[in-house]
């Protein structure tokens, strides 16, 4: 059952892989990604020397590592984006089972690196956080299941994916890693929403969350204190949040100047969770707005491409991937400006971190693969045609 459609791009058979890739890939998104990665390296020069010094490495030890991992991540990204969506789906589903197994076996073989939460496998030269890799392949799996469920006589994919999501959230909560668990829940919800969840459920869930929040606020002193602390204008000046706020304020519009920042000396997570504070202090609001614009650009570009996508699986998988990436970036920056309560989450492509970088590379590679220009029926014409026929 081949869909005959008037393609926006004329398919030329026998075209070489690379030129075809370059012609069909979303070059704007690709450019944004590369820009973010470059900014990450630039900020690494500023933020990581104090850490390197503390750990007894060369000043630019972490920058070099970041560049190496980044190179790997970009290669993986380009490679994945060259695959066909079907191949991505197949590999994604296989990878999903592997990742679930890896997460499930963490309590047995994992390490906690003295941080209280068992999230990593130690590979000797590097550490691997399987939940980072789980996120993109989970999206592929969920999109596959949900899209299949839309076929007449298809499997009950929504229930299956919900069950799997709940199970994974259970594993993540056991580590405990509530940030990743929240991302998984969010990714599933967005996919379900775009796949046509009844609006009623949306309102009921929103209502329940609101009600639950009010009930918890009134009944749990601990919860109320957390919320009050988050809402109150005053913060303890010795917390990471306060340092981040000071750094942003210190930076002003154009920054304190290269290497002039001080936050990297006081913030233990300056190179990961609070990299945006380093950016704000040394380069000012200008760079921060550029970073925000890059993420927003990626998101908008991808969403508008996906809106025109006819294949349900590609549409859903792409939505899940871009939502994950954007939400993670949003949470990271929102924490720094106290829009959200503190939650450790890296800034994709910018923050330091090997497995996170490569996992993000895979995710964006998939996204680029899904948003490549393919023959699409122009929706208006297509529908007109269809209605005329029935």
């Amino acid at each position, binding site marked *: 059952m081949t869909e005959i459609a008037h393609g926006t791009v004329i398919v030329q058979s026998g075209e070489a892989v690379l030129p075809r890739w370059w012609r069909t890939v979303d070059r704007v998104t690709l450019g944004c990604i590369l820009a973010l990665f470059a900014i990450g390296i630039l900020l690494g020069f500023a933020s990581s020397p104090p850490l390197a010094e503390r750990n007894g490495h060369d000043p630019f030890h972490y920058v070099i590592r970041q560049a190496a991992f980044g190179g790997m991540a970009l290669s993986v990204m380009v490679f994945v984006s060259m695959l066909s969506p079907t191949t991505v789906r197949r590999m994604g589903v296989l990878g999903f089972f592997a990742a679930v197994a890896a997460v499930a076996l963490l309590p047995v073989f994992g390490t906690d690196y003295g941080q209280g939460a068992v999230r990593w496998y130690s590979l000797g030269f590097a550490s691997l956080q399987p939940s980072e890799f789980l996120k993109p392949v989970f999206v592929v799996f969920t999109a596959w299941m949900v899209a299949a469920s*839309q076929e*007449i006589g298809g499997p009950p994919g929504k229930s299956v994916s919900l069950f799997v999501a709940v199970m994974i959230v259970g594993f993540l909560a056991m580590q405990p890693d509530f940030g990743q668990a929240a991302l998984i829940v969010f990714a599933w919800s967005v996919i379900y929403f775009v796949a046509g969840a009844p609006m009623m459920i949306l309102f009921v869930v929103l209502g329940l969350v609101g009600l639950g929040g009010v009930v918890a606020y009134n009944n749990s002193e601990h919860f109320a204190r957390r919320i009050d602390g988050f809402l109150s204008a005053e913060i303890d000046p010795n917390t990471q949040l306060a340092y981040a706020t000071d750094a942003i304020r210190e930076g002003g519009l154009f920054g304190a100047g290269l290497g002039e920042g001080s936050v990297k000396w006081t913030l233990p997570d300056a190179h990961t969770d609070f990299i945006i504070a380093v950016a704000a202090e040394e380069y000012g609001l200008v760079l921060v707005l550029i970073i925000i614009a890059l993420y927003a650009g990626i998101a908008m570009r991808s969403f508008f491409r996906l*809106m025109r996508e006819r294949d*349900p699986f590609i549409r859903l998988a792409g939505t899940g991937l871009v939502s994950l990436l954007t939400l993670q970036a*949003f949470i990271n920056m929102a924490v720094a*400006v106290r829009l959200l309560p503190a939650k450790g989450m890296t800034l994709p492509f910018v923050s330091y971190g090997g497995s996170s970088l490569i996992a993000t590379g895979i995710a964006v590679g998939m996204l680029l693969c899904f948003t490549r220009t393919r023959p699409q029926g122009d929706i208006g014409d297509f529908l007109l045609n269809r209605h005329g026929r029935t």
Partner: protein
Amino acid sequence: MSLRTPLRPLARILDARQKGENPDAIERENRRLRHEAERDKLRVRAESRLLLVAVCFLAAFCTVGYRMAALATSEPVEPRVASGSGDTILNTRADIIDRHGRVLATNFATNALYAHPHEIIDARAAADGLAEIFPDMDADALHRRFTSEARFIWLRRYISPEQEQQVHDLGEPGLLFGPREMRLYPNGSVASHILGGAGFGQEAVNAAEVVGVAGIEAQFDSDLRDPARDGPLQLSLDLTVQAAVEEVLAGGMALMNARGAAAVLMDADTGEIVALASLPDFDPNARPRPLTEGDQADSPLFNRALQGVYELGSVFKTFTVAQALDEGLVDLSTMVDTTGPLRMAGFAIRDFHSYGPEQSVTDVFVHSSNIGTARLARMIGAERQRAFLDRLGLLEPTGVELVEAGAARPLTPSRWGELSTMTISYGHGVSTSPVHLAAAYATIANGGTRVTPTLLRRDAPVLGERVISEETSARMRELLRAVVTDGTASFGEVEGYSVGGKTGSAELPRPQGGYFEDRNINTFASVFPSDDPEYVLVVTLYEPAETSGPEPRRTAGWTSVPVAAEMIRRVAPLLGLRPEIEQPPVSPLSSSSN
């Protein structure tokens, strides 16, 4: 919306069969069409939902960008934590002032001292330095705590400014101060039982609640803490008078070798308590702990004037005589049989001195005859006596605005029979506090209207219910005056102030039953000036013994009366009462030289 097309429309199937075609192809085709239609529907829906998601993300990024911009362009502010002042919680508790506006309780900005051991640079020096500043701290114990895993240690709930400076001078960054509001009673132990005291309620690093724990501070706690409250709490007390009363009382207590003492000075018309003292007392700035064993009445926290309910003895005769006069049973010259002992149900009532077989009502009162008073009570009867004492407020808690007042309920006999009536007539059988007594005397002496005692300033007299007639009240004032001029309270004479009063020397009951012979509660309930009483003063000494004579004297006339007289001598001018002394003619020369 069109109806759903069936997958196998019968007409077409039959048609196809007739033509020999495979009818399954029709189903396949229909199924495909339905699938396409479904997909299109989903796609249109997905398009709008994707747009919605995209808009949400865009809005979220705009918010972050806006916050970043707002933060980047904002002015840096000094963090308002762990510094000394400016915290909003400070000075929210209202002050307490006396009737002339002098401060009785106020707030004092101070600091609590705590330590962050992980920020301490030299634990040894810090521990030694602190032990030097605070002698009760142990340097070694501190050092152990400073080098432990703890991340937060409370050291002091509040410290003085001098101590704060000394801690600053240690120069140790791990020793930190949390702002505190501390309740301060600048007059020390003066009026301690009224003020009660305050302590810390909920405590956080940067603030602590100040909570009243006793006395007026506890009674009006929520009111004093109410941020909407306007102005201080004004009491009826007069600070200078209170101080003078306490000083004289302490001197009298020492001189009379008493175990404790109480005094109540009340405005006879309004019921305002101008001074209320109970000894021993305490300093509300450092309130002692309650006793964990023994009688709470021995604690300095115990307010004898309010909480000490005892049988007060002959001071009650005033009420018996007043009732007999008011009900017209007798007049002042009616002769009463005073032959003793008066036997009743195996109980004998005796007089201290016998003044003959028959005496006038005046003499019964002035010479404090138990027998004569008992006979008057018999004429009144139990029911009416009880009703009269109730109208005087002697059978209920006083209603004074102290938390302790509610529990200070007078003790009355379970069966108020004829014998009880007779013993109550001279002050045995009903136990009341000195505040009760003062209020009842004010009622008797002020013209006969009921007085309710209060600690809050009243600007005008509150005219209570009438208890006895003006006429009876006037007679009673004469009788009270006569007790001082001719009777048991002759030491109570204060030149120029025409003191009237009644003594009461009651033996303390033994816990096992019966009474101690050498342990008295001696009370002098007085009014001054007696022709138009402005004030009532009740002075009670607990277990006094006046030892200037060959034998210790334990009657009120020898103990409480001189103390009360000295008190009146001291406070009457402070209260603005002009002594009625015949002025020697003043020569124009000397008056102009003033």
